[in-house]
């Protein structure tokens, strides 16, 4: 029986799709069957980040409406054989997603996978509320920045009130994933630090993804950072976060890049 995880944030551009792809790969690499589902109808991008944009035939809305079977719409990754993608529709309206329809698709996926990871669109409208609606657990992606933290707080409120699990009176498992973190700037008091964010949002920390050029490079080539450069700092941070999702106890750290001598000597000044 799968665990359904929603990756959400409220604010756009904080790294939901990047994190969904990176965590999806990391979990699938342990041999578990993982499906990543794009809920961003009209603005899909998970296919692009996973390098599967040319293989999309059917999408989530086709499955919701019964036009295609789930097995027809799922795209199996060519590099990690236990990873599948269910893309969003690029042309349809988000109103084509119905609660009953999405609930049916998620139920079917539960019986076929170990993990179903729902990549939420930004905002708090239909796509976002349906992405979280049937989740067992949530990863809230947050940047160390005031607008992102505020929106995360709003999303936490929705997770605790508008999900099926919350309505049943059960506790919604929530984790915070801090992305684009610059430890040096935080140390200098230029950026909210980890303690500040955790104190304000008061939910447990899943991982700290350092700001890194590798993240953009990974999306450029359509290969999640945990796959294309597994030893890079952000990849190690995502791999650790995936291990924590699996229940492993992994000491929290902020991985750093292996800098060259020049970088080590002048890194501080250049940052």
């Amino acid at each position, binding site marked *: 029986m799968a665990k359904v995880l929603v990756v959400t944030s409220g604010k756009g551009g904080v790294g939901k799709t990047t994190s969904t792809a990176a965590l999806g790969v990391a979990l699938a690499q342990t041999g578990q069957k993982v499906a990543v589902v794009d809920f961003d109808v009209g603005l899909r991008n998970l296919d692009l980040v996973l390098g599967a944009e040319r293989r999309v035939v059917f999408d989530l809305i086709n499955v919701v409406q019964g036009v295609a079977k789930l097995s027809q719409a799922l795209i199996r990754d060519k590099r990690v054989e236990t990873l599948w993608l269910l893309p969003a529709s690029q042309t349809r309206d988000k109103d084509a997603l119905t609660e009953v329809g999405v609930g049916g698709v998620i139920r079917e996926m539960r019986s076929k996978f170990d993990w179903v990871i729902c990549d939420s669109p930004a905002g708090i409208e239909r796509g976002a509320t349906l992405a979280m609606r049937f989740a067992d657990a949530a990863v809230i992606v947050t940047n160390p920045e005031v607008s992102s*933290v505020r929106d995360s707080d709003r999303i936490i*409120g929705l997770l605790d009130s508008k999900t099926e699990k919350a309505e049943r009176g059960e506790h919604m498992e929530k984790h915070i994933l801090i992305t684009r973190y610059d430890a040096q700037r935080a140390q200098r*008091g*230029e*950026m909210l*630090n980890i303690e*500040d964010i955790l104190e*304000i949002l008061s939910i447990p920390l899943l991982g700290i993804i350092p700001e890194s050029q590798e993240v953009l490079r990974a999306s450029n080539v359509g290969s999640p950072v945990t796959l294309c450069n597994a030893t890079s700092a952000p990849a190690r941070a995502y791999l650790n976060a995936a291990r924590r999702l699996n229940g492993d106890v992994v000491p929290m750290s902020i991985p750093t890049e292996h800098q060259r001598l020049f970088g080590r000597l002048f890194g501080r000044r250049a940052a």
Partner: protein
Amino acid sequence: MSILNLFRRRGSAPLARERLQILLSHERSAGNQPDLLAILHEDILATIARQITVQRENVHVRIDRGATVSTLEIDVEIPHLIGTAPTPLARHSTTQTAGVGRHTVKMANFSHGLV
């Protein structure tokens, strides 16, 4: 840029943290009442209108949010004839700006739970 500015720039994170803490304590408590101000405005207007004729645009309700104390400010412009029931005459008098008195009610020490 002065040296003072340099110092100020270095420490912007504590300000971010403080602003967030104040804002979120308000937003969390107001969570289920999205438009408290509009509701208050209607209620106050209805209460006043039972005794005095006032024009909608002459009733202003605002909330100033502070770190420990929030202020609810109700600013009502009313005609001189306080206590008269709404009559065509009283309504007429509100258009005479010379005969308008200004009454401001300030309520401080509101707990965060209310706003």
